[in-house]
């Protein structure tokens, strides 16, 4: 049984008299532990697809089965718990709480997971340190650079150790060195059996995944296996990127 199975998924937005078809019927199966990249031009429907996969949005047509369960039939609480425990979502626009500092932002999923404050804080600290923000814990989003915000968003997605990571342009705002660090993080998570789905514009990033899906105009244009998956973690690459071995919660 695939982890994710979508069939004929369609999503359109009605804007007055006009209807924008963001997804026109997408079918896809993703196995547990896959490392998958989604590519496509701007406006092709990548974020729309990610929102659906992340149980945030509901499709107008089609079926989405997560772990063999039809998402459309899940209760609101079940969906909330899946978003909290199963899925780590890195938003394209970060979506951090503007009035809270980095630490609290990263702690947030753990609050709803019901962890005691001390444990929560510890884990949030460790995860922030893990993305290289150990010295920015008490900065609010507007006191952080774009790349730093992105890393806070990544830390928040990872802090509750979700088995599925959905990252919408996670390296979009990062310099290549930090970007590589994040990719190394994903790689390590993938190695540990997590399922990773990354939306990206950069072929470079896609090269690290095992499978690349190309979307155009709300349809899947290509679904390819990447035979020469690139790694950053082993040997030379790590040394090149100057990455210290990462501690992963």
């Amino acid at each position: 049984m695939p982890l994710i199975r979508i069939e004929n998924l369609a999503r359109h937005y009605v804007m007055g008299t006009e209807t924008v078809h963001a997804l026109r019927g997408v079918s896809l199966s993703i196995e547990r532990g896959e490392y998958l990249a989604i590519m496509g031009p701007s406006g092709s429907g990548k974020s729309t697809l990610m929102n659906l996969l992340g149980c945030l949005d509901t499709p107008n047509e089609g079926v989405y089965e997560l772990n063999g369960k039809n998402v459309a039939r899940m209760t609101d609480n079940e969906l909330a718990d899946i978003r909290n425990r199963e899925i780590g979502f890195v938003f394209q626009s970060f979506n951090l709480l503007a009035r809270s500092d980095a630490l609290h932002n990263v702690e947030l999923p753990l609050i709803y997971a019901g962890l005691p404050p001390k444990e929560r804080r510890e884990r949030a600290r460790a995860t922030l340190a893990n993305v290289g923000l150990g010295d920015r814990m008490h900065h609010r989003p507007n006191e952080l650079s774009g790349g730093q915000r992105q890393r806070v968003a990544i830390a928040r997605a990872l802090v509750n150790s979700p088995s599925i990571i959905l990252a919408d342009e996670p390296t979009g705002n990062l310099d290549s060195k930090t970007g590589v660090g994040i990719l190394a993080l994903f790689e390590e998570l993938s190695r540990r059996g997590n399922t990773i789905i990354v939306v990206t514009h950069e072929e470079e990033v896609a090269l690290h995944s095992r499978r690349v899906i190309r979307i155009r105009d709300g349809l899947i244009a290509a679904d390819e296996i990447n035979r020469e998956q690139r790694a950053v973690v082993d040997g030379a690459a790590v040394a090149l990127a100057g990455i210290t071995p990462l501690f992963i919660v």
Partner: protein
Amino acid sequence: MSRFREMIEMIRMALNAVRTHVLRSSLTILGIFIGVFSIIAVMTGIRVLQSNLETAMSGLGANTFQFQRFPAIRFDDNDWEKYLRRRRFYAADMKRVQEKSTLAQAVSATASFGVGEASSKFARTNPNISAVGVTPDGFITQSWTVESGRGFSEADDISGRRVCVLGADLAEKLFPLGSPVGQPVKFLGISYNVIGLLARRGSLFGQSRDNFIAIPLGTALRLYGQKLSLTIQVQAPGRETYQDVLEQARGAMRRVEPGIEDDFELVSNESSVGQFRSLTSAIRLGAAALSSIALLAAGIGIMNIMLVSVTERTREIGIRRAIGARKRSVMIQFVAEAILLSEIGGVLGVIAGIAFGNLICFFMQVTPIIPFDLAAIGLGICSAVGIIFGTYPAWKAANLDPIDSLRYE
């Protein structure tokens, strides 16, 4: 997540939210404050008066009632003539009550026989000392405690001895250095031997209750005539027999046909308090109405501010929902915020209201009180206001679509 931890978390979030909008929050809080303050202040004021009233009315002991010609509190003078037409009570009335009230523990009578100047060989007072004649049982029914010396005996009363007991203030004035017991005191030109000193009763509504002289009723009747008008006190042995004793005594006192209202006033601590209550009920009602209106307005204010807050924080709500907050958590967060707003006003209102209500203590020199029950009710009402007016905005927040809220600018 555990309910308790969830609550703590939500309260913390609510505190943060209130802190970030101090001015806006303060205005809402002010509304609640006014509503709670007005009712608590009035109720506390009334309570202060009432708590001092029991002793104020008659100084009666426990389970004691008193027959008197005029009512203890009067508000309209229309009935004045009715009271004037009433008969006076004499020694014979007391005798009859004494005989008929077989269940009573003590029956006494008192008669005021003048106000004037008292003097000893050391000092003299202003002519404002009140004087009362009292039977031996009057010490029991009026809860007088003899501090030194003794009270009146039957013999003092029957043979009309010229003895007296002094209130603590009067004794202090007349005998600043030593004990008054055994010394002579002159009042309205007649000399009495002091046989007892009464324990201090304290002042009430600014008036000393220890500035008087008491002589046996028998003595007073001999000196000032049998036509002195009496007040008669009856004490029941306990709460259970109180009603029976009261019926017996009333039967003995009544001089009118059955079915016609009593031709006297029956006063007890309970009846005084009851009378006071009914007189203040209008004030109470007015205060309740006023504060209800204030709280309603404040509640609408809370609802308004919460609706604004929900709209402003649409993105925040979207984020929380996206990372796994259940609807319930969002709901609780916003209701907690509404309750917190309301309770801040409530706590301040209760404190200020109790303080203000006790202000009359300074003017009337009575004991202040802290009405914990009123405080609890006040805070309870605030929580209710928070819940009632916070629920709809919170419900709105909880039911926002996560993805739409994330896109909200």
